[in-house]
């Protein structure tokens, strides 16, 4: 199994969700996140004082899938989150040792 983590622009979340549902992935976790990469922050002005805001708001999407589905899921997320502008985000995958469904105690791919 693989844990796929995607950091994307918040307003692309709906597209990513739809794309994953079309692949039959039912279940993901979304967290509001902030960070920066090549995209620089922005400035805000309060009573003439300028503040540089470095951290840009993003959403972090996490989904655990079977190894065979991993590449398709990554591609789907990338296609759905893509705008072509700086700040589109990153997607990565790491191996997962085990997964347990809390309600039933099922383990491994059955728990997905």
């Amino acid at each position, binding site marked *: 199994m693989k844990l796929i983590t995607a950091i994307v622009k918040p307003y692309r979340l709906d597209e990513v969700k739809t794309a994953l549902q079309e692949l039959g992935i039912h279940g993901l976790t979304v967290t509001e996140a902030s960070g920066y990469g090549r995209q620089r922050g922005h400035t*805000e*002005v*309060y*009573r*003439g*004082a*300028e*503040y*540089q*805001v470095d951290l840009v708001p993003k959403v972090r999407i996490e989904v655990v899938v079977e190894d065979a589905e991993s590449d398709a899921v990554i591609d789907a997320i990338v296609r759905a989150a893509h705008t072509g502008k700086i700040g589109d985000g990153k997607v990565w995958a790491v191996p997962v040792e085990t997964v347990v469904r809390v309600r039933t105690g099922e383990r491994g791919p059955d728990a997905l």
Partner: protein
Amino acid sequence: MTPLAAAHVDTGDTAWLLAATALVLLMTPGLALFYGGMVRTKSVLNMLMMSFVSIALVTVVWLAAGYSLAFGDDAFGGLIGDLGHAGMAGLGPDSVQGTVPTLLFATFQLTFAIITAALISGAIADRAKFAAWLVFVPVWALLVYVPVTHWVWGSGGWIVSRLGALDFAGGLPVEITSGASGLALCLVLGPRLGFKKDAMRPHNLPMVVLGAGLLWFGWFGFNAGSALGANGLAAAVFLNTLAAGCTGLLGWLFVEQKRDGHPTTLGAASGAVAGLVAITPSCGSVSLLGALVVGLAAGAVCSYAVGWKFRLNYDDSLDVVGVHLVGGVIGTLLIGVFAVDTMTGGTEGLLYGGGLTQLGRQLVAVAVVAAYAFGVTYGIGTVLDRTLGFRADEDQEYTGLDLTVHAETAYDHGVLGHGAPVGHSVLPSAQKVKPPE
């Protein structure tokens, strides 16, 4: 504010002043929101509390001695009143001041003292020891607000009676004393940790706008109520107040658009307040044209003045100096330019053929009041700092005063706080029953 000699109560005047008094009282909670929205989440409650407790603290000292020292018979050379009415002695339902009950006049004046003390808190946001503030407010009200008020509006007070300077609704006792005192106190306490380094963004601008709206609403009571009657002067003052708030707002936004490229919400709220500050002393003496210019000048100049603290290194956190001191000085001085005899009943400013005389009187009044308020407040602040300590501890300041002083947090955001709170269990003492042993 001209005390009249007539000794019977006018019901119309009394009705208006009752309403105006309630309006002015509402300004202090309004100020609490105006300031509260500008600080960071971790100390918004402390900011609200500094204003809110001022209502209670100032009321007690005002009734005990403040009113008598400010408005009692002159005791010494136009400098201070006597203690004849200490504890409101000798005043009852039948006492009359001008055409209104004396008790109402005293309460109206009390609401001015309250908001003036509360205004100072903006200069020392996020870092003052609350216990020291509780001592500072009553002492400051007696040593700074009360004497200056006597000089301006008390019987025989030297600024109006001898010098001949004009101040209709409180440019000197309210705006300039609070601004100069704020400057003194922020110098005593020193800058917030991280001043000029960390972003200290206002945490809730809608709250700031709500506060500014309540201030503006209450300001009609503040200024038009100062006519002490329901009459044509009150109406003219009311209109001047609206006009100056509007041009203040526009002036500030215009500068922002030119200088920073964006008209901001905080700028609109601040500009309206700056215009209202400047029209406070002048609303009863300038023409409508004068009011428009006074507001515009205050909005434009104050939008620059709020930046001085970064260059001169004083952390006047919420710009009490940049808005109230600077706006108050502008409004008080411009009386010397725009005063018209239809409003003042005699005095004319530079623009209406009165020459430089009135401008000179206004300048003297401004200089003396600013210097007095700054000096005495610096003294009070220093004594409190050396004894009780006026500056919060470093970890209190980092953690935020809401949690460390008041044991509260303003907001419960996020899934972890909803419904059945995670990480918050009820302590046995809060259940009012002791757990079985």
